[in-house]
């Protein structure tokens, strides 16, 4: 590898991340030797049913997003595992946190794929080989995962280099980008499965096949992704590395002795988790606007429930009241095996300092209520105020307008 760092992007690629995550937490050593398909329920799939989230590496003809029925028809002996997407997301977040301890700019591309900005760090780390080693060690500290790293002048080439590298190794793109990308299959493209099938129907199997056509032809035929497809097939990618936004959360976890639907067991567990989480919150002098409960359900998909509080709270009684009220109206789908309680939308201020002026106090209260509504609804709040524009205008519609209040 070259010792001097130009603008280099590293792609940290953990292939079949969901399968690796499942293998990590299963005591059955034979899990790694059997063909596994991770299935998820997809409302957006054209089949309206379950689709493939991930699969074992030997099932090379399966693509994420493929209907589960098609996957099973190709591999009837495969073991189906229900996807635990929260667990995979949490594990990958831990990997991203570890990577961000090494480099400041880390982007979460998708499950198992992250980009790290490796430029400008020569004085800190020396050459790119050292950075690769540090990234691999950081990911390895989280879990014993098969991590592959690719280096390239853009995100796409770095990703391809990572895909081509051997387990626990790295590869760097040197030379003509188009020639490097040409040999990769079209399944590597970040486009929906329907677009992949369309490309295949035209006899296009490799990226080099696509690069042989003019850009306009590919863009027109495969719109709206056509232009992107042509650029990636030629090794061009001007997408910047966008650093991830870290959302601070406080999470506590407990397991039930046996799967249960009894509120006599679930509620005390929630109370205990609440005490522990509030203890950590109180230490940082902050309040919480929203709490999420998540549980694995015996032989079913995981269950979750979120509660947004009317006021940011820091006390057990208020939080428990809101959680119990919502739990009473919620149907639990089956016996719960465990419970995770997560605080999110944490406030920064330990208290509220109010203004002496009533107008400003009123405005501050309004802003506060809007923040609460926004946390509850998860979208911009449709609250407006009337503003004078031209009250003297002879045209009535020019005199006043409604302006959206922003929090």
């Amino acid at each position: 590898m070259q010792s001097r760092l130009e603008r280099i992007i590293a792609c940290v690629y953990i292939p079949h991340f969901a399968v690796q995550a499942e293998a990590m937490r299963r005591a059955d050593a034979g899990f790694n030797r059997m063909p596994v398909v991770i299935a998820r329920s997809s409302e957006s799939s054209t089949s309206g049913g379950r689709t493939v989230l991930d699969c074992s590496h030997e099932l090379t003809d399966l693509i994420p997003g493929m209907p589960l029925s098609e996957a099973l028809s190709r591999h009837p002996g495969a073991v189906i595992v229900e996807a635990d997407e929260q667990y995979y997301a949490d594990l990958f977040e831990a990997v991203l946190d570890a990577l961000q301890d090494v480099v400041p700019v880390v982007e979460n591309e998708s499950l198992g794929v992250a980009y790290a900005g490796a430029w400008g760090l020569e004085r800190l780390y020396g050459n790119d080989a050292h950075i690769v080693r540090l990234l691999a060690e950081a990911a390895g500290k989280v879990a014993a995962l098969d991590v592959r790293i690719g280096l390239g002048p853009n995100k796409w080439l770095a990703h391809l280099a990572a895909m081509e590298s051997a387990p626990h190794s790295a590869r760097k793109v040197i030379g003509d980008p188009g020639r490097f990308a040409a040999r990769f299959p079209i399944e590597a493209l970040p486009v929906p499965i329907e677009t992949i099938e369309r490309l295949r129907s035209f006899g296009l199997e490799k990226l080099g096949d696509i690069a042989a056509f003019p850009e306009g032809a590919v863009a027109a035929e495969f719109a709206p992704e056509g232009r992107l497809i042509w650029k990636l097939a030629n090794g061009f990618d001007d997408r910047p590395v966008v650093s991830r936004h870290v959302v601070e959360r406080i999470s506590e976890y407990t397991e039930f002795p046996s799967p249960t639907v009894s509120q006599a067991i679930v509620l005390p567990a929630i109370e205990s988790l609440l005490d522990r989480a509030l203890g950590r919150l109180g230490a940082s002098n902050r309040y919480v606007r929203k709490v999420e409960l998540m549980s694995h359900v015996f032989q079913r998909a995981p269950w979750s429930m979120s509660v947004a509080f009317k006021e940011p709270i820091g006390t057990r009684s208020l939080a428990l009241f809101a959680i119990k009220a919502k739990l009473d109206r919620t149907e639990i789908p089956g016996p719960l095996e465990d419970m995770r309680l997560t605080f999110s939308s944490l406030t920064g201020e330990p208290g509220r300092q109010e203004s002496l002026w009533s107008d400003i106090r009123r405005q501050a209260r309004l802003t506060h209520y809007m923040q609460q509504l926004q946390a509850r609804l998860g979208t911009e709040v449709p609250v407006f105020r009337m503003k004078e524009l031209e009250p003297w205008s002879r045209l009535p519609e020019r005199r006043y307008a409604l302006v959206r209040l922003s929090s």
Partner: protein
Amino acid sequence: MVATARTSVRASSLKFLNSPREVRTRLDESGLPVDIDMSAFDMTGRRGRRTPAAQWVAIRSVDDKWKVGPDEWWRGEAHMIERMYFELRLEDERRLTVFRDMVNGGWFRQEDV
């Protein structure tokens, strides 16, 4: 310089109040309205769901009229503003303010004039 504490106003975030709404009228020989189709409005005077059948209400009197414009003529004929306003009293004692757009000839309703 300290930034203003007021919320910044952008054109895209404005919703103008009291925009004119098209209305159907019947006119006499002199061009004054004698009937107005109230089917676009419910009994409270707010805009309701438009029903298929027209609900013509007779106009008892024209209590006032005034003219606005011609104005903004420099923006071209398409944007010029010239209106003749009428304050009407309907046969069911309701008051209504309408105007005739002298540029395109359409009739519109407008409140709080």
